[in-house]
């Protein structure tokens, strides 16, 4: 009961801050100092959100398809890469610096290239999502594999465990919390990555819709899309947290004082 109360009170400050922000925004719009086509009021954004909802959902469907496909492929590739890099240390030494350096390449710079190579369909969008989600998960998994106590590996070897079993029963489960930290970041990257790729050309998706409403100077609709992207990203992160809870039941049980 007190715990529930605590969790409510801890969420109170950010909610209040948000409310103040929205109030200031509404007040600025209300005074009329900024023309409403430049900065739509919170009310008109909400109105646009509701009015456009069916259309938004249609585009969101395309964006989510790209994001999920990209994230899925990204996870798969990350597992393969990280596991191979962990198994073969020359590979680790060769690839790790490249992986880190690859993260300095701005997503927005490679998106046009991908589109010129792959056209205006879903392929370049999915590829971009793969590129952005792959890294956090790979690094998370690598750190997870490295976090395993070498003494634990020796111990299980002394019991006769072979590499496969040590990987499946020790390395993989030990790295789950690292994996989920990477996945949480990747889930929000996935949406943003898909939207960025859509900006630069395509037929459907929230990014395509955004460029359309921007060209029409319908900034209220623009804000509505941004609102939807935030909501989707939050939902995805929540989903990851739920999956993590289900996948790691031992984390829920409270640690006892020893």
């Amino acid at each position, binding site marked *: 009961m007190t715990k529930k109360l605590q969790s409510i009170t801890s969420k109170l400050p950010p909610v209040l801050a948000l409310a103040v922000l929205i109030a200031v925004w509404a007040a600025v719009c209300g005074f009329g100092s900024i023309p409403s086509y430049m900065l739509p009021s919170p009310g008109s954004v909400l109105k646009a959100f509701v009015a456009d909802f069916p259309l938004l959902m249609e585009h969101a469907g395309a964006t989510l398809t790209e994001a999920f496909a990209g994230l899925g492929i990204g996870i798969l590739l990350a597992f393969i890469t990280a596991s191979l890099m962990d198994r073969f240390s020359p590979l680790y030494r060769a690839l790790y610096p490249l992986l880190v350096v690859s993260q300095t390449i701005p997503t927005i710079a490679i998106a046009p290239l991908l589109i010129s190579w792959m056209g205006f369909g879903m392929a370049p969008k999915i590829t971009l999502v793969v590129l952005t989600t792959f890294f956090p998960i790979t690094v998370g998994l690598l750190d997870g594999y490295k976090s395993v106590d070498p003494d634990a590996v020796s111990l299980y070897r*002394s019991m006769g465990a072979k590499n496969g079993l040590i990987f499946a029963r020790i390395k993989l489960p030990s790295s789950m919390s690292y994996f989920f930290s990477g996945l949480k970041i990747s889930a929000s990257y996935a949406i943003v990555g898909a939207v960025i790729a859509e900006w630069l050309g395509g037929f459907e998706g929230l990014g395509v819709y955004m460029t359309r409403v921007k060209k029409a100077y319908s900034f209220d609709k623009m804000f509505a899309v941004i609102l939807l992207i935030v909501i989707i990203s939050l939902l995805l992160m929540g989903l990851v947290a739920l999956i993590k809870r289900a996948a790691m039941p*031992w984390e829920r*049980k409270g640690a006892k004082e020893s």
Partner: protein
Amino acid sequence: MARDLPMNTCNKPVVLSCEKISKSFDGKTILKDVNIRLCRGELVCLLGQSGVGKTTLFHILAGLYQPEEGRVLLNGADVTGKPGKISYMLQKDLLLPYMTVLDNTAMPLIIRGEKKKDARAIASSHFADFGLEGCQKQYPNQLSGGMRQRAALLRTYLSSRGVALLDEPFSALDTLTKSAMHRWYLEVMERIELSTLFITHDMDEAIVLSDRIYIIGGRPGTVTAELSIEEPKPRPADFMLSEAFLHYKRRLVALL
């Protein structure tokens, strides 16, 4: 020299022995001509300073390292360099946090190829003996330090069939828990006919627990002396305060 030591005098069958073990790393000899015997039901301590090669010796006994010379015999069979026959236990319990205590203790059986269900049943049948009854479904982080060490010990017991190699298993526990664990360990050992090789650098612990003590020393490390603690077991609770205890401690100090 070690080679001239009297052969051990226990009249029970030898369960574990190593003969003339030598091991070096990067050209530096760590262990030289180590001979050790462990008889059934015995508790034998390896006493020596840190860095003398005690843990290396355990890795050799467990089959993780191949010695340059010498061999390891388990119940008469040569197990040199063959892991999977004898396991050991460290100061760290190394229980896997994502498995229940039951699954943790059943791991050695699963590794050996038992079906999960059978492995659990076998492991569970020992929980009472190890003072773990009722903890089967708990996760390691729900147990106290002493309980976790018991679970680790059960895991060692199930992986080694009657022989336990313990590498400073109780050194992380506080003094009171430690002496409780000593009493409990001796009692459980007796009941399940466990033979134990025990690494420690704590003289008091060695005298209280041991039937015999090997002193490991020198560079490269070897057995420099052997001392039998003739005191019958179970030993009285105030053994540590007795004249006999002091007598052994004086001899140990002289030998070290």
